[in-house]
């Protein structure tokens, strides 16, 4: 069965963070990137949208570096987990972990709908 999924193209992302707000408006009914289940990081001139994955209460014991082109990135940057090392995807007030729930099908998860650059795309496998 075809499974819709979100494809992320880092080369297209402009770092506008409209996706973060789409998510926070949809789930928290306020504008606040820290309450979004997608966050956009940047390193050098490249932006990395990261969609919230599982919540873990211990950090990894191994550190990974990833090489893309001639740049080396810290795996933590791209990792989807929220952990004590990377305090993202946690509700500031409640400490409640946030996870992407693939909202709004049909037609599109809200972040995809507002991403105008084509960096986020809904595809069917």
């Amino acid at each position: 069965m075809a499974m819709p999924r979100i494809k992320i193209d880092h080369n297209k992302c402009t770092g506008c963070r409209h996706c973060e707000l789409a998510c926070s408006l949809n789930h928290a009914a306020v504008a606040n990137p820290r309450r979004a289940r997608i966050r956009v990081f940047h390193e050098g001139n490249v932006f990395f949208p990261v969609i919230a994955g599982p919540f873990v209460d211990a950090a990894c014991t191994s550190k990974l570096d990833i090489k893309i082109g001639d740049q080396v990135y810290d795996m933590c940057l791209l990792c989807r987990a929220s952990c004590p090392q990377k305090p993202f995807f946690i509700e500031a007030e409640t400490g409640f972990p946030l996870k992407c729930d693939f909202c709004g099908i049909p037609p599109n998860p809200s972040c995809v709908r507002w991403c105008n650059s084509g960096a986020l795309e809904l595809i069917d496998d």
Partner: protein
Amino acid sequence: MYGRTGRCLRVNLTKGKHLVEEIAPELLDKFIGGRGLGVKVYSDEVDPQTDPLGSENKLIFVSGPLVGTGAISGASCNVVTKSALSGTIACAKMRGHFGAELKFAGFDMIVVEGRAESPVILSILDDKINIRPALEYWGRSTSETEVMYKENLDDKWAARETHLVSVGPAGERLVPLANVINDGFLSVGGAGIGAVMGSKNLKAIAVKGNHSLLIADGDRFVRVVTNLINKLNSAPFTSHSMSAWGSAFFIDLCYQKGMLPQKNFQSAAFVDSKDIGTEALSNTFALRSSGCFACPIACIKKTAVNYPFFKGKGMAPTYWAIGALGLNCAVRDMATIGIAHMICAEMGLDPIAAGGTVATAMELVEKGIADRDSLKLEFRFGQGEDLLQALTLMATKKGHAKRIGKGGQALAEEYGQSKRFMGVKGLSMAAFDPRAIQGMGLHFATCNYGPHHLYAYTFIEEVLGVHEELDPLTTEGKPELVKRYQDMAAIMDSLGLCNWPLMGLKFNNLVPMINSCLGTEYRADDLLRIGERIWNQERLYNMKAGFDHTHDTLPERFLKEPIKDGPAQGQISKLDEMLPRYYELRGWSEKGEPRAETLEALDL
């Protein structure tokens, strides 16, 4: 309160103290926020005769109510003060992510007062407000400051979310041409503001926060914003041209209409725009799009250059940078223009003001009025190395900063040649020849912030013909056009919206977004009326600061000498045909003073 935080942070650097205040709701009703609020608070609190670099002067950073809410292109933060270059009121438009972060940090506005003993950085991080010593940052370029500041923060993840506005060496040295720089973006239209920030010994402001902004009618807001994104996406300029090249794509269009200045506005013709247009831009730089907060257009083109004598990362040149730093100095090499633009960002110089000053010096030398010995630097038209050297030295070397950094007007006056300074109210012209684009000419003469095209986007009609196609060479309907676009820019800046989306949609299209966000019931006319109130408020301030109708003019060259070459050959600016009608439309006397009944109707 919807959209806004309603709070203002008042920082007194002399005393090293700060205070959190509520912003009076009447002020927000009348002046909205952003530029309007900043100008109102500034004019109420600061004597118009004040010395811009004195400690009594204040510096205001203010984000509009739509900034950070998810409204399209709601990214604009304004910096209001009195310009150290012109003595008029000044208002820089900062894009990027600083403005939104300021709102998330819980403030609409920061008012900076007094002067610190020694260099400091103001940090507002997760509700902790500190004024920290910053001696080790003094003298550093804006990008170094940003990197160093973030490296010094203990929490590396928090550092990723912190946004800075800073001054470069030019601002520190009180060079009047200096501007403020945020997130590595050059602020627009802020010549003279960097020196004010430098005079306060304030190197930078850093913000980060966790606060939420409330939206009045979230469901409707999300629907309206989605529609607007789709609209922008189906309009050619906003979906393609701006996204591919940024404003640099105007170069080809303006070239065809003969409105590109060359050699300090002495000529308008180029052999071929291939050297300096979009083709050259794409061939010279690897462009990467970057958007301001919540902007679907993403007109900012980031790039990196790697030459033996200059390495750096930054913004690829925009239209006004290519015009002011390139064409007007007769420099045609795109790589040199790009480096000049990056030097401006690193040093904290305003590209239009700095380019205009260099062009003035070049003309003085070309005409044999000044020379290498008296200027202590080479200034030859078309010589990229002269340009680059002048930009670097005017920001870093004391003597040069005094001589060249004081700006084109002061330089031309020193040689008794004021007519060779191409600018109005002490500020250099943006790169449109007013003889070939009459509406823009009228705007240049009357703008409260000097001749800058981003305070009235009349070229959207006069060059691009987006909503109505207007002949740039005629004066018919131009006073109306200029007034409408001036008021529109004033209200959009106050709301915190970037003006570029107007290339893809009408102002009316934005009204439902504004209302659903703020819980208001404005009609487009109501908003334009508030824009008009803001424009008049600025005018009143400038009048008290010593500006009157005699300053609403253009350099003699545009009024008397026809364009020598190119498609608009033979044209002069018909300013005197348009100005009386403009005053009349504004409800001002023939002397350009707002009439009592006009002010009363605007509730001023």
